[in-house]
Structures are given as structure tokens and as C-alpha cells.
């Protein structure tokens, strides 16, 4: 265990969720006759985090750094390769499937794309009833109806929405349906994977406010995943910054903004545009070179050293830094203190070319055209 392990887990501790050394590796397999595993996409590669009850943990990072995979692994939707996930004192990774299924009532998920996460052939009522039925909540139709109506109210949808289908709603309303689906089971934890990034600016704000209100009213615990630092900053108590499958920094929101310790966090902060010309004009940008390396073939040592303007000839390329506690923050950088003090100055980094992993279609996926033609 690293020295980042600060909070002592207790039976009904203050932390609702404890994640220890979680890894999710997706095998890459190919072979001549039988597929052999030739490598792994290390989507999540050793993450520790704890989420206190009633608080919001925000997770940010570039696309492909493993945020969604972490969220899903936490909910056991993707089986973790190793590590532990402790939810309210119950170890989830070893829970038998049946128990896990009933456990799901207490932890729910909100998805990025409100359209694709709703079954287009279900009307809102059956979308909401499905979870209730799965867990046997509500004695009969009327009882369930009541629960549903209350939830609809909570997310600000009218009652007539019940008989409607997802495609009849606007994006914001759809996202409200998604939230209602999560809420209807009365969960303790909600994992929101990019809950607003598919929405228009004005709608985004409505949903952010809604999430905020619901937390206050229902005492929910959130894990909010987003690539938009500003959104995360707005709703999170603690923010974790991910890079290539691992946390590089974790700190309370204000502190992270005021005193980013990890070079990547700094770069990220400086890249987020602020809708204020005054701020924009004054800002000093730390531009990162190149793109995120492939998680199938991550750099050795510190994963960030290939793009880091503060990278040093020693340690960075060989030794993988662990999360260390510095003040309120936990940071995974060998040189965090000298960088913070200004002792180390950034230097120029040249971009390296990065290959996107497996975007091509394989011929096996070419689907048969469903053409008629009897040939006779």
C-alpha cells in the first residue's frame, strides 16, 4: 500500500466507496488458428481512491485515459482484472453474481449519451419500472406508479412524459430521464459518466444544477466522470486527475485549482478556456506536445514523461511514481516539490507520433448485405 492510503477503512466508515489498486486490462488477442493473448490494453492500471459519503468525487482526464472503464469496473459492469472495490463495507469483486445483482440497487449509473443509453422502444414508464421490477420494489402497479411519479417530479419532468418514448424528448429531457432511471431505485452512489458533455451549454447548466440539488436533497454520493475540468470543478468536492490508466493527482477542488502540483494537472488547468477575455489574455499557457500515448503500450516509468515539460533525465523514464501525500493533495510525481517551488523550469518537448489503437474495421465485421435475390 502506498503512503497515499490515508483514510483508515472502518466497518461503516465515512467512505462509502474504497477502491484499492484496481486494474482493468483488456486482452489483445490474435493468432494463426487459436487466438493468443499478445498484450493488454491497460485501461485502468492500479487506481486507489475513496469516496466519502454524501460527497462528490470528480474524475478528469483526456479521452481514452480510462475514466469510463474505472467507473464501470467500480460498478462491476466490467470485471476488474485485479484489485478491490469496497462498497459500504462489502467487497464487490468477490460477491457472487446473485448478491451483486441485488447490490446494484444501491449504486447506479448515468450515461454520457442520453439517447443511446435509453432503449428507443421503451416508453419512459417502462424504462423506470424495469429497475423496480428487477428488485421487487413496490407492491403493485399503483405503488410503483407513485414512486415513479415522485422521481419524475424530482428531476423536473412532467407526468405526461410517462407514456412518451425517448425520441420524443429533447436532449436535456432525455438526460433527466436517465437520471430518473438511476434515482428511482433510491441508490446511495451514482456514477455519472460524462453526464453533461453531450448537452448544449444551456441544458448542461440545468442538468448540473439538478445533480447538485438532488445531492443536497437525497444525500447522494457521486462519482462524476468528465473531461471538462470546469464542470468537474463545479460539482466536485475532491478531484482526481487521471492519465493513462492511473491517478496522477488527487486534491480538493479549490486546492487543485489554486495549487496544481502535477505537471499534467497544470497543463490541463492552463488549457481550459475561461469565458472571460480578461482571464484569457492574462493566462500563461502550458502547451503539451503531442497526444496521449496508447494504453496498450504505455511509456515506461512515469507515464507522462514523454510529454512532460518538466521531465528530468533521471528517474522519470525508469521509475513509476506513486501517489504521495503533499498537503491536502496526493500526487504522483517525483519532482512535485521542486516544480511547485519554481526550482525546476519547464523546457520544450517535441511531439511524438502516437498511433490510434485499432480503429480499423476487421474484415470479419463486414456485414452481409441483406439483399434479396433468389438467383433462380
Amino acid at each position, binding site marked *: 500500500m502506498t503512503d497515499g492510503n490515508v483514510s483508515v477503512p472502518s466497518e461503516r466508515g465515512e467512505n462509502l466507496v474504497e477502491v484499492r489498486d484496481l486494474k482493468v486490462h483488456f486482452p489483445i488477442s490474435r493468432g494463426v488458428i487459436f487466438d493468443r493473448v499478445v498484450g493488454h490494453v491497460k485501461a485502468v492500471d492500479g487506481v486507489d481512491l475513496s469516496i466519502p459519503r454524501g460527497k462528490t468525487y470528480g474524475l478528469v482526464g483526456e479521452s481514452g485515459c480510462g475514466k469510463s472503464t474505472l467507473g464501470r469496473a467500480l460498478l462491476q459492469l466490467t470485471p476488474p482484472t485485479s484489485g478491490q472495490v469496497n462498497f459500504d463495507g462489502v467487497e464487490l469483486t468477490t460477491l457472487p453474481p446473485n448478491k451483486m445483482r441485488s447490490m446494484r440497487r444501491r449504486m447506479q449509473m448515468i450515461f454520457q449519451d442520453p439517447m443511446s443509453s435509453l432503449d428507443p422502444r421503451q416508453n419512459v414508464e417502462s424504462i423506470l419500472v424495469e429497475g423496480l421490477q428487477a428488485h421487487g420494489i413496490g407492491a403493485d402497479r399503483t405503488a410503483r406508479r407513485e414512486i415513479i411519479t415522485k422521481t419524475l417530479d424530482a428531476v423536473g419532468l412532467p407526468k405526461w412524459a410517462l407514456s412518451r418514448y425517448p425520441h420524443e424528448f429533447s436532449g436535456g429531457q432525455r438526460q433527466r430521464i436517465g437520471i430518473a432511471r438511476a434515482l428511482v431505485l433510491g441508490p446511495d452512489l451514482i456514477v455519472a459518466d460524462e453526464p453533461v458533455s453531450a448537452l448544449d451549454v444551456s441544458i448542461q447548466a440545468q442538468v448540473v444544477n439538478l445533480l447538485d440539488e438532488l445531492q443536497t436533497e437525497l444525500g447522494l454520493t457521486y462519482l462524476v466522470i468528465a473531461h471538462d475540468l470546469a464542470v468537474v470543478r463545479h460539482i466536485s468536492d475532491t478531484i482526481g486527475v487521471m492519465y493513462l490508466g492511473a491517478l496522477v493527482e488527487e486534491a480538493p477542488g479549490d486546492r487543485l485549482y489554486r495549487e496544481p502540483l502535477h505537471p499534467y494537472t497544470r497543463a490541463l488547468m492552463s488549457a481550459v478556456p475561461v469565458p472571460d477575455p480578461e482571464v484569457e489574455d492574462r493566462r500563461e499557457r502550458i502547451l503539451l506536445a503531442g497526444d496521449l500515448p496508447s494504453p496498450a503500450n504505455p511509456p515506461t516509468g512515469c507515464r507522462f514523461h514523454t510529454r512532460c515539460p518538466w521531465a528530468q533525465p533521471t528517474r522519470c523514464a525508469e521509475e513509476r511514481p506513486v501517489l504521495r501525500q503533499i498537503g491536502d493533495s496526493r500526487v504522483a510525481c517525483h519532482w512535485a516539490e521542486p516544480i511547485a517551488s519554481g526550482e525546476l523550469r519547464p523546457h520544450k518537448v517535441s511531439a511524438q507520433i502516437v498511433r490510434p489503437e485499432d480503429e*480499423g474495421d476487421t474484415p470479419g465485421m463486414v456485414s*452481409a*448485405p441483406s*439483399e434479396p435475390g433468389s*438467383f433462380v
Partner: protein
Amino acid sequence: MIRFIVRRLLQLIPALFGLSILLFIWLHRLPGGPETAILGERGTPEMRAAIRHNLGLDEPILVQYGRFMRRMIRLDLGSSIATKREVTTEFLQRFPGTVELAVTALIIAIAVGIPLGYLAARRRGKLLDHVSVAGSLIGVCIPVFFLAYVLKAIFAENLHLFPSSGRQDPTIEATRITNFFVLDGLMTREWDAAADAIWHLVLPGLALASIPLAIIVRITRASVLEVLGEDFVRTAEAKGLTERVVRQRHVLRNAMLPVATTIGLLTGGLLSGAVLTETVFAFSGIGAFIADSISQRDYPVLMGFIMIIAVLFVLVNLIVDLSYSLIDPRVRVR
């Protein structure tokens, strides 16, 4: 690439093994046997029993299969019960006809279908579009054997433009090398033989092409329409490229991928179509021969031919898959 080919070929072995077992059981479960076909009306039960015994058909099926397998491993497919010729000989004599016919049909379908589909897409909603879509719909719905009869009635019987039967005028003395008549004619410089063989291909080719043509027209049209709406076409337009360049370099090539898939899948159907087309045009090929072999329970021919066809089918699809990677660099064969 080579790995991919090797992998696909190796995968073929268990598949063929499975296919041979299924096929063997299936064929031998068909009621009756070759002896009835051989003897016709004149057969007596004793004579039938004698033939069955001679052919080893009275042995347990496992023993028979074992014998078949032992021969297979030596790549010997045995000989036809009906014609008493080696199965491979039969295949080499009849398959070229089917290939010539299928290739002709494909050439007609591609040469007419792709431009027509493309034009229909460009003129979407105009007369040409409607005509070609309606034509292709009818093309799919018309029974081939009926179409064949009509074609012959018009072009052979009345106009005497094309011959109505066979692969080549038998009065032409042609040398046979590969049994691909056109190819043979070209190889031996017997131009009249080659020309006559092509002449004989026109009507059956047209009949067999009707469905692939219809399908290709529609796939091309749909695919071109889709590509026309793609972002990169807009980019190409934004570069101010001439219309010809946009069309050839950007639209057509991208639209070809689904068309290539379709062409690969059409090969299986062409074989089916060939059964009827060959019968109606008295065209020597494997289609009608296999159909006859089924009714004659010519087990060695059926086993051999279908196994060879299965291998060829896989090979054709392998080639199609490889051709994707030529058309589309995103497709990595592995």
C-alpha cells in the same frame, strides 16, 4: 497479410472435416441409392443388391466414411458412379463452363451495374434514377428460367443473333487445354473458337446477370448516396477540386467497399443460378451436373464437388477480404 491467408487456410481444414462428415451422413441418409438410377426400369432387387455390394454401400457407414477419408487424404476423390470417370476429371471438364458463365454474368453485372447505380445516385429523384431502381426491382423478381426462355425466343429463335445452346459450335475444331473455351481459344490463337465461345456466353450470361445486376445497381446507388453525404466529400469540395476528381478519387473509391462485399457474397448465389441457367441453355457446367448427381445419388461426385466448391467459396471470400484491404487501408487483415 500472409499470416492472415495462412490462418484462413488452416481454419479451412477443420471446417472441411466437419462439412465432409455432415455431408456424408446427409447424402447417405437420402432414400434410395445409385443402383436404381443405373438400372432404370430394368432393375430387379437382386441386381440392385449386387450393385450395392459392388459399391460397398452395404457396409456400415463408418467403414464407408473411413474409406472415403483415406482417399481424401491422398487427395483422391474417387470416380463417379454414373459416368465412371474420375471426379477430378469431371470437375475439370465441367467447372470451367460454370466459371465462364458466372464470370460473364459478373462482368455484365459490374460493368453495367456500377455506372448505372452511380448515375442513379447522382441523378437522385430524376427519371434515370426511377428507371434504374424500378428496373432493378423487376430484375430481382423475374424468375431466371423464364427470363432465359424469353431471351432465347427473341434473340436466338427470331433474330438469329445468338446461339441458344451450348458453349461452342461443335463444328468448330477447337483445341482444349484448360476447358475454359475463351482462354483456350486465345492461348491457341484459334480466334474463331474464342469468338464463338464468347458469342455463346452472351445470352446465358445476360440471364444469369439479371439478379446480380439488380443488386449491384442498388448497392452502388445506396453506397454512393451515403458517401456523397460524408464529411470528406464536403472537404474535397471545399478544396475546390474539380467535379471529376471529387467523383473518381473521393466518391467512387469509397463507395466501392460495400459493393465489393456484395460481389463476394454473390458468388454463392451465382452457382445456384447456374443450375437453372445451365439447364435452360444446355450449357455444360457443374450446376446441372450436381443436380443430376443428386437424383442419381452419385455420392463420390457430390462429396467431391461440394467439398471443392466449399474450398473455392472460402478462397473467393478470402480474395474479397484481401481486396478490401486494397480498397480500404483501414481494413487490416489479420
